[in-house]
């Protein structure tokens, strides 16, 4: 084993934050030895509940996370927070500002906050996020909270990732029938209408409630609750915490938990296969002689991209 990887594994086993932080970077960067690292920490993993918060920019996800994590740490839990923000498609950079609204957690023992940019994933979650979760579980955290901005793909990814998902909304941002239709109803285990101090919260909550009731099947034991809250004033946040616990109990009773485990395993496997594909097939092709030849032929309208793809990676499909 590479010395660096061995040191990281040992550090994580000993509960050292510095080692965990470096390991997270190695995995995010897909740096040399990252697969070995993930393989080595795999036996150290203790599964723990994963909670997700998603919603449009600025609805109050970090303010809520700040409260939830604060309460859980008071109860003696060790908490990890992964806060995902989008990478700029133009520069590749990102502004990760979630810590601004998590001031009560700053420097608090028992809380590890990691800000992650979405990087390669177009609008979605970082491909490394599953690996970050594995590292935190090897670090023996009691719970992981994932905050993601709800744009496009990340909304469906969060379902595969988290055991319990709260969709956060606020009034007056076009969170109306149209937005609600766009798949949000399917992904929430809990709905939070935040900023109830602003006009329109009542209407939004009512609308949500009726849409949820109409799609909840007869006999279905979990009907997603709708909570109105004022996160900035701490209002109704305790309720949200309780709802998360309820949902978790609900999961533990049935077979859903295993189903979630399987979904997560599948997502992680797919992500790693994609990375292998990148490294072994796409990487060597990019910029190669064949690549240039193909581009010339495509732009010269001789042979199609479909033709070239099959030529580059032969085999039947």
């Amino acid at each position, binding site marked *: 084993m590479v010395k660096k990887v061995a040191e990281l594994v040992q550090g994580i086993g000993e509960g050292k*934050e*510095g080692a965990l*932080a*470096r390991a*997270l*970077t190695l995995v995010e*960067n*897909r*740096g*040399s030895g990252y697969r070995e690292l993930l393989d080595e920490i795999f036996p150290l993993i203790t599964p723990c509940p994963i909670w997700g918060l998603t919603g449009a920019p600025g609805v109050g996800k970090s303010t809520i996370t700040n409260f939830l994590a604060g309460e859980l740490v008071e109860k003696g839990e060790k908490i990890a927070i992964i806060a995902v923000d989008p*990478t*700029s498609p*133009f*520069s*590749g*950079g*990102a*502004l*990760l*500002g979630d*810590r*601004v*609204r998590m*001031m009560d957690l*700053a*420097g608090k023992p028992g809380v*590890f*906050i*990691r*800000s992650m*940019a979405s*990087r*390669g994933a177009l609008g979605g979650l970082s491909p490394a996020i599953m690996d970050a979760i594995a590292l935190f579980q090897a670090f023996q955290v009691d719970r992981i909270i994932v905050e993601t901005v709800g744009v496009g793909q990340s909304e469906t990814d969060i379902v595969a990732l988290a055991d319990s998902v709260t969709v956060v909304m606020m009034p007056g941002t076009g969170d109306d029938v149209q937005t609600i239709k766009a798949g949000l109803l399917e992904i929430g285990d809990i709905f939070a209408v935040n900023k109830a101090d602003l006009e329109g919260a009542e209407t939004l909550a009512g609308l949500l409630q009726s849409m949820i009731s109409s799609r909840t099947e007869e006999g279905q034991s979990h009907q997603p609750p709708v909570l109105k809250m004022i996160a900035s004033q701490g209002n109704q946040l305790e309720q949200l915490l309780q709802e998360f616990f309820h949902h978790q109990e609900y999961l533990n009773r049935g077979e859903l938990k295993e189903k979630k485990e399987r979904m997560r395993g599948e997502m992680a496997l797919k992500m790693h296969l994609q990375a292998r594909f*990148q*490294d072994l097939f796409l*990487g060597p092709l990019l910029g190669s002689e064949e690549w240039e030849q193909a581009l010339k032929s495509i732009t010269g309208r001789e042979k199609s991209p479909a033709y070239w793809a099959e030529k580059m990676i032969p085999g039947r499909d």
Partner: protein
Amino acid sequence: MAENRIRVLIAKPGLDGHDRGAKVVAQALRDAGMEVIYTGLRRTPEQIVSAAIQEDVQVIGLSSLSGAHNHLFQKVAGLLEEKGYTDILLIGGGIIPDKDRKKLEEMGFDCIFSPGTSTSKIVEFIQDRVNG
């Protein structure tokens, strides 16, 4: 395929209230392709160093509006030294008297930028020192 990105923590220690300068720098660094963790106002040196360790940044940028925060800057440098994180590039910006600037540079600051410095100069400095 390895994909390294420069990660930077931007913080503003001390109690005074506005952070426009820090935000402008944060945005410029983002536009130069860096991942910028912005922590907001009123952070203690301990909180800043703890965040830098968890976020595994290669650079910490501290902003200050007056020389009054000199001791907070020093405290950050001291904590980093104490915890063995001297490889982190430490930069500062704001209105800082010459004599304090010298002292800070002796204490481990790699550069103190004066208020008029263009953001492209800061970007260049970071890229040079981290990649070079």
